[in-house]
C-alpha cells in the first residue's frame, strides 16, 4: 500500500506577532509542520504498520521546507519529495489554488492507494487544497476524517465529522482523504527516528522542471493588507464568594434579556 501525504511548512502561529502598516510582523522566523498534516502523517504510519507499505511525504515550498519533510521522515515516513520554489518571487503569494495545481501535476503521474492531506493550513485556515486536488484528478475524496481503516477488498472506510454527526463512508482505492487533528496524537520523533531520517531519500524537484505552465498555478487571491482584529475589551470581572458572584451573574443575564 502506498500513501502520499502532502505536508506544508507553516509559520509558528504561537509566536508573538503584530500588524504594522498593513504588514504582519512575526517575532520569530520559526516554522513548523502544519498540525493537521502531522495528524495525516501519523494516520498513514498507523496504516502502514498494520498493512505494510510505504509512506511518502510531499511538500511544495522554499529550501526551508526540507526541514518539515525531515521532521515527517523522523516520525517514520519512508521518503520525501520536495518541489522547490526557490528564487521565485511570487512564492510568497501562492495560495491554495496554486499549491493544488502544482501538487495535482505531481500526483497525476504517481501510483497511489491514497493521498492524505491536512484538512486545513494552520496559518490561513483555507481548507481548499485537498478538495481542489481531488477534483482536478477526478478521484473520490472524503474530507475531515477522524478515523481511517482499510478493508480486505482494498477499500478505505473513513469516519468523517460533519456539522452535527459523523458519517462512515466506504470509498475505493486511489482516493484522497483530508485529515482532522481530532483523529490521533501525532508521535514525537524519537532520537533514533531523527538519526534514521537523515539517511532517508529526499528527492528535490524544481518547480520549473515539473512541466507546468506558470499561468496554470497563478494565485487566484491577492493579499491587500493585514489588519488587527477589532478588539474585544475585557469587561467586568467579579472576584468574590460564589454566593454573591452567582447572584450578580444571574441578575446581569436577566438585565441583558437572556432568559426567554
Amino acid at each position, binding site marked *: 500500500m502506498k500513501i502520499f501525504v502532502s505536508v506544508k511548512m507553516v509559520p509558528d502561529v504561537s509566536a508573538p506577532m503584530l500588524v504594522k502598516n498593513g504588514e504582519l510582523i512575526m517575532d520569530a522566523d520559526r516554522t513548523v509542520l502544519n498540525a493537521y498534516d502531522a495528524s495525516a502523517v501519523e494516520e498513514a504510519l498507523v496504516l502502514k504498520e498494520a498493512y505494510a507499505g510505504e509512506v511518502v511525504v510531499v511538500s511544495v515550498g522554499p529550501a526551508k521546507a526540507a526541514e518539515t519533510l525531515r521532521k515527517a521522515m523522523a516520525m517514520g515516513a519512508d521518503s520525501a519529495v520536495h518541489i522547490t520554489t526557490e528564487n521565485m518571487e511570487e512564492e510568497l503569494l501562492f495560495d491554495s489554488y496554486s499549491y493544488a495545481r502544482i501538487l495535482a501535476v505531481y500526483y497525476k503521474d504517481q501510483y497511489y492507494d491514497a493521498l492524505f492531506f491536512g484538512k486545513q493550513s494552520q496559518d490561513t485556515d483555507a481548507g481548499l487544497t485537498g478538495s481542489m486536488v481531488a477534483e482536478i484528478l477526478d478521484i473520490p475524496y472524503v474530507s475531515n476524517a477522524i478515523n481511517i481503516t482499510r478493508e480486505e477488498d482494498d477499500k478505505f472506510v473513513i469516519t468523517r465529522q460533519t456539522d452535527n454527526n459523523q458519517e462512515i463512508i466506504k470509498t475505493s482505492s486511489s482516493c484522497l482523504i483530508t485529515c482532522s487533528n481530532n483523529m490521533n496524537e501525532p508521535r514525537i520523533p524519537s532520537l533514533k527516528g531523527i538519526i534514521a531520517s537523515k539517511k532517508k531519500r529526499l528527492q528535490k524537484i524544481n518547480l520549473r522542471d515539473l512541466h507546468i505552465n506558470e499561468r496554470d498555478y497563478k494565485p487566484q487571491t491577492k493579499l491587500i493588507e*493585514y*489588519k488587527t482584529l477589532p478588539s474585544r475589551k*475585557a469587561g467586568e470581572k467579579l472576584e468574590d464568594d460564589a454566593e454573591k458572584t452567582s447572584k450578580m*451573574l444571574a441578575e446581569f443575564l*436577566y438585565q441583558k434579556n437572556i432568559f426567554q
Partner: protein
Amino acid sequence: MILSHLLTIHKDGINRASAEILARCRELKNHLLKNSINTELHAIICNSNVSLWNSSKLSNELGIYGVDKIWITKKGNICDQNKALIKYIASAQKEATKKYNIPSLLVMESNELVKDILGGLAIHINASVISDVIKFGFSDNNFTPRKDKSLYIRATRPVMTSKALADVKVIDKQIIISLRPGSYNLPDVNDLETVPKKVEIEYMNDRLHSPNNKISLKNQIKQVINATEDFIDLNEARIIVAAGRGIKDQNGKTLIANLAEVLNAGIAASRALTQSGIYDSSVLVGQSGKVVSPQLYLAVGISGSVQHISGILNSKMIIAINKDKNAPIFDIADYGIVGDLNKVIPILIDEIKKIKSK
C-alpha cells in the same frame, strides 16, 4: 450579475446563517441596481427539508429577501455525496449565468458541508474562491462593471489562528465565497420587502439525471452516527454553554447539562474534553471545530487558548467562569466570574430559576 446562495432550510424557516447571507446579498443587489447594473438574486436548495415546503411558502419566505429565482433538487439525498453536490450546484450556476453571459458571485455558509465541497466546486466551475470570510463587498463603493465583465471582490478573513485579519481580493467572472455565521446582522423585519413578488422556481431533477450529466459515485455512506439525539444545533443556538477541562468529569458534565437546561442553551466543549472522550467531537468549538455566533457564549472552565477563541469571536457576548483570575479567556470576556465552577454553577442555576419563576 447573478448573486446566489446555497440555502439551508429547516422545517419551518430558513436557517440563521442563510438569513444573514441573504440580507447581505440583498443589500449588494440593491446597490448594483441603483448603479443600473442588472442583477438577480438566486437561491440554490439541495436539502431534503425542501419537500416540506410548497411553492407559495418558498415564494413568501424568500421573496422578502428579494430572491428572484430558486433552484431546487427534489432528491435531496443525492447531495449527501460531495461529487453529486458539486455537479448539482454547478448546473444551477451554469443555467443561471448562461442566458446573459454575466458574472456571478456565489455565497455559502462556512460550515462542514460547504468546506467539504468548496475547493472542488471552484475547480469544477472554474471560479476563484475565498473561504471563511467575515466581510465581503465590491472593491469600491461606486461599483462599475469591468470591460471583461469580471467582478472585483474584496474580503476580510481571519488568519494566524485569528490573531490577525487579512484583506484579500479576487478578480474573476465567477467567484465563490464562504462566510462565517454571525458576520452580518439579521435583517430588520421592517426593512424587508413586504409584498413578496412571485419567485421563479425551477426543479433540476431531470437535468441532473440526463445522460451527459451522469454522476458516478465512488463513495458509499454506510452509516450516519448521530452524536446526540436531543440537541440544540450550535450553528443556530441563541445561547451556548461551553465546557472546558475545568469541569473534570461526568459530574461536571451533569452540572453543565443542568445549566444548559435552565438557559435553554446548546452545549459545546473545548478540545481538552473532546480528546478525552467526555464530549463528542461534534460539539468541539474552535479552529479545528465549529465557529459559533450565539447571542451569549458562556465559557466554563475554559482557559481561552487562541485555537478555542478563534471559534467564538463572532459571539455577541462572552461570559467566562474560571478559577484562575489570569486565564486568557477573561481578556475577551464581557463579563467574568473568578471562582470554582463547582460552587458557582449550582447557585447560578438556583438564581436563574428564581428569576424565571417571578
